[in-house]
């Protein structure tokens, strides 16, 4: 019993400690993103654009393919039940709403975590192991400005953009099944989709994806700076970065979903 309490307490305190560190990291990022550039310290735009292309543009093929498949799967799964009631036209509502509000932001975020969140951790971790972060500091250059802010900017722009693409392709996946397999009229399905969706579906999905972007980036960076000593630590932290990031994304998703649900 005492052991159990000690175990829980230990992990709780550890969790609080890392939360504190992440808060400091967030403050520091915002400081170098908004306040310091106003004081003439500059922002590394070029680097931010490079990161945007890497996180956003380069992940589009894989996100697109997966979104198409998820759209097809969703349509088929819902057809299974809806056919019994002769209500297959409502596949349009189901696919459209779940894509916009939930699945497109979530799938994009999880794919970008695996693709780029891990890369952020590995990059910063390797730089820490090879003393490159120390070298930056000794040169009087701030690691937040050089490493964190460009990645952060690239990431929070990339995730919503990729999400919009994913939304569109997921709905297209539903189209393929409904029109191609179930023989629903193209325009009937189109009208049904258009009528089912409201602006709130779109922006609630986009707000979520923005916060998923924050999460992926900050978890990746936090784990990267946690790397100590060896290459083994880089591997460990990269794994941990992906797990923590996906876990946190789900929590953030839950919070926003609840918020939108109760403010309906």
């Amino acid at each position, binding site marked *: 019993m005492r052991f159990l309490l000690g175990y829980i307490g230990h992990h709780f305190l550890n969790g609080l400690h890392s939360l504190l560190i992440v808060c400091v990291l967030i403050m520091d990022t915002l400081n170098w993103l908004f306040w310091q550039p106003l004081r003439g310290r500059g922002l590394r735009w070029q680097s931010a654009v490079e990161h945007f292309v890497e996180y956003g543009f380069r992940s589009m093929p894989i996100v697109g393919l997966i979104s198409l498949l998820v759209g097809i799967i969703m349509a088929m799964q819902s057809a299974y039940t809806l056919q019994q009631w002769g209500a297959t036209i409502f596949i349009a509502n189901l696919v459209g709403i779940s894509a916009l509000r939930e699945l497109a932001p979530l799938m994009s975020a999880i794919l970008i975590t695996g693709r780029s969140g891990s890369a952020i951790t590995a990059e910063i971790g390797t730089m820490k192991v090879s003393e*490159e972060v*120390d070298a930056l500091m000794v040169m009087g250059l701030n690691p937040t400005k050089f490493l964190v802010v460009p990645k952060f900017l690239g990431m929070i722009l990339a995730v919503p953009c990729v999400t919009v693409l994913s939304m569109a392709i997921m709905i297209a996946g539903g189209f393929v099944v409904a029109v191609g397999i179930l023989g629903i009229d193209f325009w009937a399905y189109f009208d049904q989709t258009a009528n089912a969706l409201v602006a709130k579906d779109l922006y609630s999905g986009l707000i979520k994806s923005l916060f998923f972007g924050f999460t992926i980036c900050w978890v990746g960076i936090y784990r990267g700076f946690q790397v100590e000593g060896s290459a083994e630590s880089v591997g460990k932290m990269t794994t941990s970065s992906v797990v923590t990031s996906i876990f946190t994304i789900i929590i953030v998703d839950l919070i926003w979903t609840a918020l939108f649900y109760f403010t309906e």
Partner: protein
Amino acid sequence: MMNNNNSEYIIEVENLVVEYGTRRVLDNISFKVKKGEIFVILGGSGCGKSTLLRTLVGLLRPSFGKIYMFGKDVTALNTQQQIELRKRIGMCFQNSALFNSMTVGENVALPLKEHTNLADSTIEIMTQIKLDLVGLGGCAHLYPSQLSGGMKKRAGIARAMALDPEIIFYDEPSSGLDPIVAAGLDQLIRKMQSTFNLTSVVVTHDLESVQIIADRVCLLHEGKIVAIGDLKEMGLHSDPYLRQFFARTPNPEENQTAPSILDTFENM
């Protein structure tokens, strides 16, 4: 403590204590480095010499004690003052710590780009001068992964020299290099010091390079200073650890463990 800028000492360390958690890594260290000399910090593995260097350049905060550089207490600077100080010092890391995502030329140009308002063409010329200085004139377009260990260290020195610092710190400059390349690096360190009247602080355990580069030596053991002085004084010193270190005598325990390994082979 006098804070005279014209003092002959450029670095003054007083009663420095550094702790990792509860473990005391550096215990009450005091020494002074004269302007324009090469000061070597010697010591065995794990004696705290790298920690000392990291504390001097401000990567670690001391628990107690003061470090004065250019007459200012560097442990009590605000961020802006710290940046100003760091423009006046350079550091060469053990594994050179070049940015792998940039070419050698970009590595050397980075501090110039960030800390000066010079035109790009001027920066290019200055970068070339620094690279010529360390004998890497034709390597500006190469990436660090394409360089050998010795060339990386030279590139690291060029980067540390980019802003024409007054003090340069070297962390184990000859580690991992063959004797010829290491000797070349020793020569380079000497050349930097004599050409630019550069104060150099070198951390090493390489006794041969100490003979060539050191003006004064300080020997660390278990976080404490055993002796400070020039090489002659070191030769006359009677401390048993110092005599053992300079004579390269192994510890007696290690002599006893060697036959025991043989025993295990015999018993197999």
